[in-house]
């Protein structure tokens, strides 16, 4: 009995020790939890408060509406229509395939399209919306809206689709838009938004900054499934600015109708006073915005005559004799020739063991500058080019607007080539030959320019000012006034007289450019023919004996009226033989169209030639 009492006492003491130990351990452990809470809630509160806000606040950029493109009279060429989109944020969806299948009961979604979407979802970041259908009717969107509460991650919103008008006349000018392919880090984040399109060519590309507008932002409070609980803050997107192009749909239509008579051709007409592009055509032409499928694209890209190329700004042609004004002014400016000096042409010009030929095999005899321009004597220009040197010639070409591109509202212009010895060394690693200067002097050899540049050259020659072209600009803005070219007026006058003679004097190569339409036949044209060789064979044989692709390119550049120039124009017809016989009539017809329209628009203000207007 006694032993049991002692036993019990011992047991109780032992239990008490252990119970107190365990109890104390429990308090210590709870204290540890409390200190952990202190660490999280008091010491690290700021950090976690930020994370909690990151969680609950979802910001989305809002795409701005793109500005419109208008013609010079305000006719809409490109605007936007509202489309309804449904998209899925894959990060918020546990079963993407199942969700898509449920959507397919509301909107048409073929099985192969569904597979494509699943594939795309694997490639793109999971938190970016995957656009399921961007072209839904209001009724369809409304129906999806009913089911959205049961379809986590599915959202509907509106977007814009670009819509073009008059693509037949202006498709190559306005260009088109598409999704950005590889956004750079410093790009406007707006361009990454699904459905946002950026300009890929033409005006759309050149005036992207103007047209795009500024993205807005919306902050939502969202729950863990990404469902929007309420809107916290919105900054509305800013619509892009409208831009106007200088062309006129109706006039453009008439000009293109004439141009379509040629197989491959390009034409640009400028307002000499302002530099505004009045007409721009490229033949053949396909409206890029009308090509919906990639198959259509491929077909157009591989088509025989390259209908997606805007030859007016992208076609590079040897300017041929239309370059002779550059050579003449370079020589006059450098003092290598005078207006009176007469040089002899017997059809051949020997230089450094080679003979350079004049196009007129029998030769022109004695030529001063006036006659050399009128009859396009090659030997005269070989001689003054040799005297002047390639550097000065190319410099004059640049001064007159060749060999460069302009920020004038149309993208993807090509610069062409004004060769120099440095350029040749960099390009081919070879030294310059004197004979190459002779070729350059008559616009052959390495010299390449676009019809657009040639039109600028004519506007500058006609005005004596450094006219800069302008094709599209924000609505309500005006181009800057052009400054003087800084060329001696007497030399410019001499060249202009030569150009007048080309069209209007006996023996001139461009008499086909004389206006014939009664309404405007009192207006005189000044111009220059050009026939640029693309194949060696054309030297010795008549055009009719040559295959089409071996024939020379025909060029004609002009301005009118000759006495008070208002329009400068340049045209190229590929493989059409001599400029005087094919390009001059084209320019004549187009000038008639433009001038007649002018007369109609401003009755009584166009007087007879030589009278003040």
């Amino acid at each position, binding site marked *: 009995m006694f032993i*049991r009492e002692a*036993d*019990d006492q*011992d*047991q*109780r003491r*032992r*239990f*008490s020790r*252990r*119970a*107190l130990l*365990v*109890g104390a351990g*429990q*308090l210590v*452990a*709870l204290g540890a*939890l*409390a200190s*952990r*809470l*202190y660490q*999280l*809630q*008091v010491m*690290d*509160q700021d*950090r*976690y*408060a930020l*994370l*909690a*806000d990151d*969680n*609950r606040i979802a910001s989305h950029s809002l795409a701005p509406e793109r500005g419109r493109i208008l013609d010079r009279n305000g006719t809409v060429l490109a605007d936007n229509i509202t489309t309804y989109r449904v998209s899925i944020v894959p*990060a918020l969806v546990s079963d993407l395939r199942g969700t898509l299948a449920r959507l397919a009961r509301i909107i048409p979604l073929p099985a192969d399209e569904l597979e494509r979407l699943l594939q795309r979802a694997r490639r793109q970041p999971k938190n970016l919306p995957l656009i399921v259908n961007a072209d839904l009717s209001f009724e369809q969107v409304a129906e999806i809206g009913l089911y959205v509460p049961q379809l986590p991650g599915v959202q509907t919103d509106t977007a814009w689709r670009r819509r073009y008008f008059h693509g037949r006349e202006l498709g190559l000018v306005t260009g088109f838009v598409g999704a950005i392919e590889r956004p750079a880090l410093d790009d406007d984040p707006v361009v990454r938004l699904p459905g946002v399109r950026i300009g890929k060519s033409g005006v759309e590309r050149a005036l992207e900054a103007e047209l795009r507008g500024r993205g807005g932002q919306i902050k939502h*409070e*969202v*729950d*863990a*499934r990404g469902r929007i*609980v309420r809107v916290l803050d919105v900054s509305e997107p800013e619509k892009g600015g409208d831009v106007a192009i200088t062309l006129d749909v109706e006039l453009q239509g008439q000009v293109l109708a004439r141009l379509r008579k040629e197989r491959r051709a390009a034409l640009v007409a400028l307002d000499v006073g302002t530099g505004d592009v009045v007409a721009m055509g490229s033949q053949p032409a396909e409206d890029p915005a009308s090509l919906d499928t990639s198959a259509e694209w491929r077909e157009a890209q591989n088509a025989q005559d390259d209908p997606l190329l805007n030859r007016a700004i992208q076609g590079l042609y040897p300017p041929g004799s239309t370059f002779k004004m550059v050579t003449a002014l370079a020589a006059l400016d450098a003092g290598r020739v005078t207006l009176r000096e007469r040089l002899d042409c017997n059809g051949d010009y020997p230089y450094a063991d080679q003979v350079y030929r004049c196009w007129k095999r029998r030769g022109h005899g004695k030529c001063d500058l006036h006659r050399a321009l009128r009859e396009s004597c090659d030997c005269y220009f070989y001689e003054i080019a040799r005297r002047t040197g390639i550097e000065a010639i190319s410099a004059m070409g640049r001064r007159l607007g060749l060999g460069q591109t302009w920020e004038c509202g149309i993208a993807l212009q090509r610069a062409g080539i004004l060769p120099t010895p440095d350029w040749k060394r960099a390009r081919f690693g070879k030294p310059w030959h004197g004979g190459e200067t002779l070729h350059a002097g008559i616009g052959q050899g390495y010299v390449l320019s676009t019809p657009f540049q040639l039109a600028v050259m004519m506007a500058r020659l006609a005005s004596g000012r450094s006219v800069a072209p302008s094709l599209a600009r924000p609505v309500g803005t005006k181009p800057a006034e052009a400054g003087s070219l800084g060329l001696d007026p007497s030399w410019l006058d001499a060249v202009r007289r030569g150009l007048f003679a080309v069209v209007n004097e006996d023996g001139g190569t461009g008499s086909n450019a004389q206006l014939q339409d009664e309404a405007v036949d009192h207006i005189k044209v000044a111009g220059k023919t050009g026939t640029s060789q693309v194949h060696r064979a054309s030297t010795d044989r008549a055009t009719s004996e040559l295959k089409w692709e071996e024939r020379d390119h025909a060029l004609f550049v002009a301005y009118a009226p000759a006495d008070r120039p208002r329009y400068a124009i340049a045209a190229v017809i590929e493989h059409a033989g001599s400029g005087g016989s094919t390009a001059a009539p084209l320019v004549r017809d187009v000038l008639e169209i433009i001038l007649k329209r002018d007369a109609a628009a401003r009755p009584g203000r166009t007087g007879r030639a030589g009278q003040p207007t």
Partner: protein
Amino acid sequence: MSADAQAVLQPRALVQRLARVPWPAVLAAIAVAACGAVALYSVAGGTFHPWAERHILRFLLALGLALALAIVPVRIWLAAAYPVYAVALGLLALVPLAGSEAMGARRWLTAGGFSLQPSELMKIAIVLALARYYHWLPPGRRSWPQWMAVPLLMIALPVLLTVRQPDLGTAVLLGALGFGTMFLAGVSPLYFAASAGGIALAWPHLVARLHDYQRRRIEVFLDPEQDPLGAGYHITQSKIALGSGGTSGKGLLQGTQAQLDFVPEKHTDFIFTMIAEEWGFAGGLGLIGLYALLLMALTSMSLACRHQFGRLVIAGAGLMIFVYVFINIAMVAGLVPVVGVPLPLVSYGGTSMFVVLIALGFAMSAHVHRDERMPREDFGPLW
């Protein structure tokens, strides 16, 4: 009915015994459950429906049951200990054969619209059975190896059955309860030191046998950033909720993490996260303090008890509540891996509520009858 039983049921005796009920522990339990009701009101977005009202109802029912258990003579519970354990073990063994499956694990027995989780019953039964054993075992023999085989078997059988369900959290909890009770019973500390060493050695082997989702939980626990949107999501979001709550909290119904569903399971296992987000560090600390009061009350009750069975039942109940509380809060605070352990009296759920209050009921019975003379010699090894 025996004279003994009649005496027990006399009104005067009932009042006497009710007067001996440990009211500090009861009040602490009521306060904790009230916190739970407020939290569930907030979880539901400011209504008592569906959780808070049922929580309150269950608590009142379970508290009534606990008080009823408390005034039943502890002698009866002593006698019932082994049969209860046997029934619990039998049901646990039935689970793999007849249990219903949910989320890849078989844990429930369903009969006539009533479902029971035998592993929960076992938490009480294992404490009762071990207390009964050490009440009988002469103190001098408690550390003899041959006298440890039976209690170890008592622990090992249910632990193995729960591991196979698989329910790792409950298995760990059962093991902790069993070994904790053995420690309180006075078994030599050398055994505990030795088994701690053994577990450390066997750890890699144990990890290798874990189910993929269990191993994944441990890996993600060790480095939640490794998968912030997948398995680490719960831990990360819970820590954000706690941290953003700050010192004084975002206010009732204002917890963005909880109210916007970033916190998972916030009416059950993660309810403490919401409490600490909305009530802040002050609220979290207050709730932990209430648990500490409850545990201190139980410890002092166990010290006052004059029989070994009572001491171990009271201390075992305290241990059970402590282990629940600690694992749950440590889990939501990112200190231990995510295991499905509710917060006692606060988390929504009938089973856990009844288990905790039944355990408290047995402990209170031991306290009410703390002076009962139950000489060890009166008991055989089994009855």
